[in-house]
């Protein structure tokens, strides 16, 4: 399978400020999350992938095309949905979507027909002829997605698509993105601060910090690299038991729930040692469950760790 993104030592400077530093990535097609704090380089990476700016150093190949030489052709195969702006106020919904199609090279009639179709599929059929100024936040997000989809791009670059949506709208948008991501030949690059959204829609994630790739890989693989974490449950007085575990290097977090605690164990820890210690202290353990680390926890852990060397594959 050909790669979706191939970035080699991509570096970009704005004057003296380094926005991206030696980013090397090989990403396979599919739904991918792009995670990072403000200033991490997400927007610069999106610009480079869109072919809008040329990287100061390095090469970037998207969908098999070099962004340096095929910027315009590339944008015909990519759809970009910005978080803010991106509207031409005064136009009606269908005019806006059709214009997006025409700007991607579609003939007017086809762009209009496709605009109607896309808006209907996204639940905006009744609002097609309404001026954009009269759209709600949720409708605007759907509309922008429609304009992104109208020319049937192979790659969707989505910048905070659930931003400003109420819970119901957010669920609907995520459902929609999941549905799109499952379609053959469609890839998503979803930039979001809401890691739950990325976890729900994407299979892989790229985590950026200060212009460098901190981690990249399948989300389930990122989870497997977590420090081992367990939830313990017991009956009775567990103070001596917990003290015994602490002496052996286990970090205990009491979260206020009676009869249970979270335990972070050292790397060489054997699970049976929980039972051995409970036996020594004569404490009946009623539960021992490995805790699933979510992307939020992975992200927080990685943000506090030093960056690893570049050169990743997802």
């Amino acid at each position: 399978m050909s790669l979706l993104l191939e970035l080699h030592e991509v570096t970009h400077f704005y004057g003296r400020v380094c926005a991206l530093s030696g980013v090397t990535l090989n990403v396979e097609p599919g739904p991918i999350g792009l995670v990072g704090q403000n200033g991490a380089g997400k927007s610069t990476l999106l610009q480079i992938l869109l072919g809008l700016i040329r990287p100061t150093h390095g090469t970037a190949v998207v969908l098999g095309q070099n962004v340096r030489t095929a910027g315009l052709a590339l944008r015909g195969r990519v759809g970009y949905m910005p978080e803010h702006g991106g509207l031409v106020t005064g136009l009606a919904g269908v005019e806006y979507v059709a214009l997006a199609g025409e700007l991607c090279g579609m003939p007017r009639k086809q762009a209009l027909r496709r605009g109607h179709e896309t808006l209907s599929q996204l639940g905006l059929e009744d609002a097609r002829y309404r001026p954009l100024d009269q759209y709600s936040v949720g409708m605007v997000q759907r509309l922008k997605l429609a304009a992104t989809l109208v020319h049937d791009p192979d790659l969707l670059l989505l910048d905070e698509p659930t931003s400003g949506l109420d819970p119901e709208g957010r669920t609907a948008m995520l459902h929609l993105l999941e549905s799109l991501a499952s379609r053959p030949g469609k890839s998503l690059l979803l930039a979001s601060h809401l890691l739950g959204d990325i976890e729900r829609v994407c299979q892989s994630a790229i985590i950026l910090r200060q212009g460098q790739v901190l981690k990249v890989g399948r989300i389930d693989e990122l989870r497997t690299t977590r420090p081992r974490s367990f939830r313990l449950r017991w009956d009775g007085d567990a103070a001596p038991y917990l003290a015994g575990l602490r002496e052996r290097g286990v970090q205990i977090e009491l979260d206020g729930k009676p009869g249970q605690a979270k335990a972070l164990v050292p790397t060489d820890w054997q699970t049976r040692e929980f039972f051995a210690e409970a036996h020594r202290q004569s404490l009946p353990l009623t539960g021992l469950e490995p805790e699933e680390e979510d992307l939020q926890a992975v992200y927080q852990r990685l943000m506090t760790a030093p960056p690893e060397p570049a050169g990743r594959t997802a």
Partner: protein
Amino acid sequence: MSVDTAGYRRWAGRQLPNALACWPIARSGLVLVLRRKLFWLLLALAALHFLFIFATIYLKFQIAAQNPGLERFVNQVLRSVTGTGETYREFMFRQGTVTMLVLAFAGGMLVGDDMRRGGLTFYLSRRIGRWHYVVGKLLAIGLLVSLTTTLPALVLYIEYGLLTNSFSYFRENLGILVGILGYGLVMAVTLALLLFALAAWLHKTVPLVMAWACLFVLLPALGELLQDVFDDRHWLLLSLWRDIRLVGTWFFGGIDTERELAMLNPSLAIVLGVCIVSTLALVPRVRAVRVVQ
């Protein structure tokens, strides 16, 4: 509102060349402008002057046909409609007031809003370059200018020619056609570039109208004042609209007076200078780096 992506189907049509994307940009720009009632009012004002001249030409020919004895008298009274280049040049010049008003109010909608509300992101993230965007917007502004100046002037030219009942008028006055088109082109290009650059920097309508008024009302008035004070006609060059007319006059086949001839080169330099400075000023406002912020 339900979502139904099951019906989503692929599109595999042939993509048109990028250069053709300029037209949808221009068309949508005109749609935005013409949706406002204010512009219809301004265009109606422009149409009034046009209809007046149109009716005058018609009247002149009717009187001359029915009463040949009055022809000389009519020609004397209606000196502004002689069918020479002067007729159309003056008509286009006098349309200036309405044209300026249209442009002052349209600039914010056509360009300013794109900069202020992120419309530029919409355009530049598609399969077009920034020059397609610029050309599309310039085309929209240019068409607005032509709608109030060049197009009605052409209609008057055709009317005059048809009322002569022979094609000799068209044959003998091809230079006038060149003049109308040339003057119109100079006007459209200069004003479009200037408006684009100002709107790209000022964004909102009110500051844009003020800047526009400074350029086309205050500066000419100042020029006339300084000309009176210093007794130097070069101060009149401060009126860009006048400069454009002088350059446009050249297209009509020559300049009548020595004084105007002496002013032609400085006027041309000013018009070119405005175009170059405007182009240089608009370039940083449409840099792709501004698209994703």
